[in-house]
């Protein structure tokens, strides 16, 4: 088994996969806390358009994904609360983004495999450039997160009180959205546009059912995420089946099993943290 | 001797592990206008649902128009409290009223003069004809409430059950609705049961008050039922009633 790690592509996959999983687990914690899962899904669909449209500008699909998700994330951040309840509008925009994506795809390649790669992940075909780009942005994201961690937590749990205490809630909201965009672009690399939930939401959502305390929750989230990713990659390599299938299945099943289990074991533990006005 | 239209004997209702109603006995006669009062959770809306056949009593009997309650009884009109509707809903005022006429029949409504006329008459009766083609989402709370009442009246019911039609309306609109209901009820000789939080706008229209609290009830004239003595007995703890300038206030409790 260990000879696997002699291959560069596997080394790249594990390095990138580990870093990306860690970021997703932490950012995902906040996404669940702030009830912004829908925004996350929107951004990942938009990522598809960015990935396929990148070819027009001669960029790699990873760069295209980054640019597009960040731009749209800024848009979401700017619209702020006006997005709430606009399911239909957002759904229409998403569909259009996907339609545009398939158009770009057809223009630049008749290769359906590439579409599948973007939609379902391509961690085993990470290029050196992609690796460095994702490492760089990943570390930058982690760094930013560390700086804004405390005020972001405060603003997410109780935005009104936080604002009264001088926390720049709106600004943090925008910064977080951009962070989310970056994180999703990275997640797309590992599990693809359609399975982002597995890396971003599942570990964090499961962790929040296991513990109420933020730091414990986040650590659990990271641990779970790494379990899913490493387990998924090993299983995928062993069975010669797409890695994202295993990551997603492990993640989903863990959530679906763990949540009722923890509900039964310690029902008092699960008390949803107050959301203030953060619903999306 | 007035005809008995609703008769409850030893009515008991337990939902889950909560006893909502315990040994309710009362009779309501034809043409009466009854206000149903009581604190939240006392079972006021539940009582209406029992009369509509939406709930079954745990024990005891209900006779309404001489029969047991059943769903789909055209002789009973029902209008719940209006809710806030999406502004973009593609339904017009006349569509909503039209439900009262044939909303429960299979198929689609073929446009015909008779139908349009019936709906227009119903709209006119609640003074909403000029807004007939407005989308419902754009109507005010009071206007939507009128539609629901018009809808309930379209089957020419003998009984009208209204669940908190005056809540979330300001005083003048609430008064207008009360005047409307009173006028309609008198002209058609309908028995009206109206659940409300505040009896004051209704004092000049109602015959009796049905006060529900603590799984029990008391029915009678307002000045007999809403007294410190009667309510204290009902609640099982001291309650103070204050009457001033022709208005009644119950201290320390939802009316």
């Amino acid at each position, binding site marked *: 088994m260990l000879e696997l790690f002699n291959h560069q592509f596997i080394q790249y996959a594990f390095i990138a996969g580990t870093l990306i999983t860690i970021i997703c687990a932490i950012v995902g914690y906040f996404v669940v806390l702030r009830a912004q899962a829908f925004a996350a899904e929107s951004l990942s669909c938009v990522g598809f358009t960015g990935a396929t449209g990148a070819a027009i500008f001669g960029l790699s699909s990873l760069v295209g994904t980054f640019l597009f998700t960040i731009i749209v994330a800024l848009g979401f951040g700017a619209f702020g609360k006006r997005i709430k309840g606009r399911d239909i509008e957002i759904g229409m925009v998403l569909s259009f983004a996907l339609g545009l994506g398939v158009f770009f795809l057809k223009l630049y390649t008749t290769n359906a495999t590439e579409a599948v790669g973007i939609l379902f992940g391509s961690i085993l075909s990470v290029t050196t450039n992609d690796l460095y780009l994702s490492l760089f942005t990943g570390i930058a994201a982690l760094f930013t997160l560390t700086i804004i961690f405390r005020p972001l937590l405060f603003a997410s749990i109780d935005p009104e009180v936080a604002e009264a205490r001088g926390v720049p809630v709106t600004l943090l909201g925008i910064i977080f959205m951009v962070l989310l965009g970056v994180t999703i672009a990275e997640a797309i690399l590992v599990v693809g546009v*359609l399975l982002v939930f597995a890396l971003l939401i599942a570990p964090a959502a499961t962790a929040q059912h296991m513990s109420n305390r933020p730091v414990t929750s986040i650590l659990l989230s990271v641990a779970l995420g790494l379990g899913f990713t490493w387990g998924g990659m090993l299983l995928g390599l062993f069975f010669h089946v797409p890695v994202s299938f295993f990551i997603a299945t492990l993640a989903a099943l863990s959530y679906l099993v763990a949540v009722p289990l923890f509900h039964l074991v310690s029902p008092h533990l699960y008390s949803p943290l107050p959301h203030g006005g953060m619903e999306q | 001797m007035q005809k008995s239209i609703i008769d409850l004997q030893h009515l008991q209702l337990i939902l889950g592990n909560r006893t909502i109603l315990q040994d309710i006995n009362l009779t309501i006669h034809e043409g009466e206008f009854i206000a149903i009062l009581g604190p939240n959770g006392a079972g006021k809306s539940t009582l209406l649902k029992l009369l509509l056949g939406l709930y079954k009593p745990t024990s005891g009997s209900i006779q309404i128009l001489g029969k047991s309650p059943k769903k789909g009884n055209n002789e009973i009109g029902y209008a719940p409290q209006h809710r806030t509707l999406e502004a973009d809903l593609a339904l017009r005022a006349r569509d909503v009223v039209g439900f009262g006429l044939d909303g429960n029949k299979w198929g*689609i409504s073929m446009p015909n003069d008779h139908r349009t006329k019936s709906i227009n008459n119903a709209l006119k009766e609640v003074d909403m004809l000029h807004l007939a083609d407005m989308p419902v989402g754009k109507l005010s709370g009071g206007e939507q409430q009128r539609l629901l009442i018009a809808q309930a009246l379209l089957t020419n019911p003998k009984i009208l059950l209204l669940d908190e039609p005056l809540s979330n309306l300001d005083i003048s609109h609430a008064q207008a609705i009360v005047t409307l209901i009173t006028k309609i009820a008198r002209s058609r000789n309908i028995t009206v049961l109206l659940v409300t939080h505040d009896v004051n706008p209704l004092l000049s229209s109602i015959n009796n008050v049905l006060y529900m609290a603590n799984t029990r009830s008391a029915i009678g004239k307002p000045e007999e039922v809403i007294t410190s003595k009667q309510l204290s007995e009902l609640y099982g703890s001291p309650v103070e009633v204050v009457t001033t300038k022709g208005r009644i206030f119950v201290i320390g409790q939802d009316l």
Partner: protein
Amino acid sequence: MFDVLQYSFIQNAFLASFLVAIIAAVVGYFLLIRGLTFAGHALSHIGFAGAAGAVLIGVDPVVGLLVFTIAAGVGIGILGRVLKERDVTIGIFLTLALAFGILFLFLYRGYAEQAYSILFGTILGISTLNVIITAIFSFIVLGVLLFLFRPLLFSSFDPEVAEARGIPVKALGILFLILVAITVSMSVQVVGVLLIFTLLVGPAATAMRIVKNPYLAIGIAMLLGIIYSWVGIFIAALTNLPVSFFIATLSFGTYIIVRMVEPFLQKHYA
């Protein structure tokens, strides 16, 4: 240019999409009134797993779509509105469905092409058999919807009063979701799993902003759906670019234009 219309595969595409546009318009109107657009989204994702599974065992993907979406539709109907608030739980189920979908497809040799066509639609490749299947199901759905129209509309507007008037609200709700499932399965043939919104919700949402009369709104939605599909197919046939892209663009573009023009339409009501 117009001789492209002589080919039978184009005629098949026109016919199938015509039928789909009709039922999608009616179903879409009710989805919007009942606040269940998320169900359309969910059913199409779950359908993906079914379609992929069908391909794996050598059966027509539509069969897989129908089986999975109807089962899921009944499930959603029974579990009720409780599901709507649970974004995370729904999302995780959908993720699982998609993951299995990709597994099934991977195990089948030509998987990328099949995945692509299920995800984005293959109306230009629709077989005569599938057109017939689409026709049969469309007639069934339309017939049932016509029959259920009034009580369904009433219970969508006010389930409580509707039940008091003797309408079987819960049963209707489940039956409706089965009809949604069938419509989604048929629509996937035209626009694919990922773009289901453009045909299922787009035309109805647009029509509802133009008129407020339910029958007119549905009629306009049908018209819009047919126009989007036919124009999309025509251009795609000429340019060899994806049909679903054109349908999506037309659907989205028209919606935006109507939204912007809407305040001027409102003066009509003042």
